[in-house]
């Protein structure tokens, strides 16, 4: 899964002090998801029911979609704080253009995501700003723009085609889950089987070396941020369709944190140079399952947040062991 060749070779030399087993570093997040599922299967009533699993998957789908884009950005040693604003922007545009039909409205909403990404990408690659600062501007301003366009109001969505996107299902599997899964496969293909994917990893690993090697650094960086913006806009569209209302003031709030968490817990290092797509999906699932488990056992939200914090620290600590060896 990872592209770093240094990891597997190390344990032989440091076998005297096996602090964290290598398999745990590699597969810990999947083991944690499996353990949580097992725990719930035994101790939680009505957890492994189709209804409940459907609900969990529907809830996690938008996070997965945003986190996939975030994983690509983090792979280039960047970060995108503006994903929540991109979601809000897409949501604000939908009701304005639904009068012209579903497809034009969707295209315009996705285009807005691409524009957000292009601005971020240009600030990062052409101007040379740090990703945090570059995307902070649209984090602050993007939601404002969305609210200005929507007159600061929540608008009900009445278009049946759009609502079908949010609530429909294929062979019993909710459409949003199918879309998220398909996108995960597409991103995995992109990362592992295309030149663009290899360029992302190379740029994240060592940007100046990649530039010296003649890679189109600016173009790849811009492309990655555009992809991230489009994916965020898509998540905004799907969430809007499911909520049956466009709510630019709250849609996507704290989404950047959830997405970054999923990516990092999934084993993608913040220092770039590697993108773990399956890990990202598992990371999002782990956070969702954790919250659901605590809620089902009547533990308050505060406990869930503190548990999430602990998981993040633990995941990064484990990853740190892997890097330092």
């Amino acid at each position, binding site marked *: 899964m990872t592209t770093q060749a240094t990891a597997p070779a190390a344990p032989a030399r440091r076998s005297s002090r096996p602090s964290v087993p290598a398999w745990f570093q590699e597969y810990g997040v999947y083991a944690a998801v499996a353990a949580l599922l097992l725990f719930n299967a035994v101790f939680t009533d009505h957890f492994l029911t189709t209804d409940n699993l459907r609900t969990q998957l529907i809830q996690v789908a938008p996070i997965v979609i945003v986190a996939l884009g975030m994983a690509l950005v983090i792979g280039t040693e960047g*970060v995108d*704080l503006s994903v929540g604003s991109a979601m809000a922007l897409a949501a604000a545009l939908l009701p304005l253009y639904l009068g012209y039909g579903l497809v034009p409205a969707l295209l315009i909403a996705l285009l807005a995501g691409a524009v957000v990404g292009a601005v971020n990408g240009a*600030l990062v690659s052409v*101007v*040379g*700003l*740090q990703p*945090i*600062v*570059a995307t*902070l*501007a*649209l*984090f*602050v*301003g*993007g*939601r*404002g*723009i969305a*609210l*200005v366009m929507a*007159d*600061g109001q929540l608008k009900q969505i009445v278009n049946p085609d759009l609502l079908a996107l949010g609530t429909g299902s294929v062979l019993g599997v909710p459409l949003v889950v199918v879309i998220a899964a398909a996108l995960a496969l597409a991103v995995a293909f992109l990362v592992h089987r295309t030149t663009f994917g290899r360029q992302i990893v190379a740029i994240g690993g060592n940007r100046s070396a990649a530039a010296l090697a003649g890679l189109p650094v600016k173009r790849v960086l811009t492309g990655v941020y555009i992809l991230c913006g489009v994916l965020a806009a898509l998540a905004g569209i799907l969430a809007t369709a499911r909520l049956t209302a466009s709510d630019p003031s709250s849609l996507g709030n704290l989404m950047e*944190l959830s997405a*970054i*968490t999923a990516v*990092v817990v999934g084993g993608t290092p*913040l*220092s770039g140079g590697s993108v773990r797509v399956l890990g990202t999906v598992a990371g999002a699932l782990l956070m969702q399952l954790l919250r659901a488990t605590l809620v089902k056992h009547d533990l*308050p*939200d*505060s*406990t*869930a*947040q*503190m548990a*999430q*914090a*602990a998981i*993040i*620290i633990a995941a*990064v*600590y484990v990853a*740190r062991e892997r890097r*330092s060896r």
Partner: protein
Amino acid sequence: MKLSSSLAASPAGGSAPPSPKAADAHGARPSGRERIAELVQRQGVLAVLLLVIVIASFVYPTFATLDNARGVTVQASFLAIVALGMTLVIITGGIDLSVGSVFALGGVLAAWASQWGVLPALLVPLVVCGGIGLINGLLIARAGMAPFIVTLASLLGARGLLLALTDEGATTYLVPKGSFFAELGQGSVWGFGYPILIALALFGAGGLVLQRTSFGQTLFAVGGSSDAATLMGLPVARAKIMVYLLSGLLAGLAGAVNAARLSSGVTIIGAGMELDAIAAVVIGGTLLVGGAGSVSGTLWGVLLLAVIQNLINQIGSLNSSYQSVVSGGFLILVVVAQRYLARSRRTA
């Protein structure tokens, strides 16, 4: 508060050792163009702030009143205190995302503890919030974890602690009426509230520490190059732990003073404050890569954000969403300008 307290430190990626005399240390005298670029980078925010204030005073008579000035500055003082800690953290090349949560937590703790008097109302939030900052610092400096992730986790953790303290946000703690603690937030000298004086005193102290002490110089060195600072034998880990500790303490103090002003601990405030603070720091000319910056710039950055917000309120017809649009626009403008100034200085 010295206006020219910022350093002539090296721009992003520059290899010059960060010292107040960095420009001279090269041997060559800085060219006129370089000097102007440096001056704009250093005090450009102040110029923009003054320009905005002058124009606004002519256009909106209600803006240039003493009452309005008092209101704006009191509102800004809380963000200013938080942004002061953030400035120190960012100068070392780090970032503290937990300050918004810690600010809210500090307020709730202060309001809760104020039933036993002023001292507990200040000590409890400082101890707890300082503790969170200390943990951040230890994880970052000793365990070598990324500041972004560590403080992201403590953002969640502090918010969780806050929810647990308030029965999931259902309980609001009130500061007892007539308590001296409430005076700390509501009292004033010549109409200027104590929060302003506290913020000014802290900025004065912060500026002195940063410019006149070896600790301050260590922070710049750590931000310039952590490895080089280690090789020079500087106490890098201790400096990093200290800045996160200070950031936690300042955010907690700001929360406590805010609770004193509101007479209650409000659970829903502080969300997104970390990004406001970062924006103010960046607008103020402190480089996010670390190694260069000033507390005076941060003060002007905070005031600029506050004045923009106030102006948008004055222009009654503009909906408040424009505030974030204008703030975001300013942020882009300032950082892009800084970037090009830094480049022109390096090539000059």
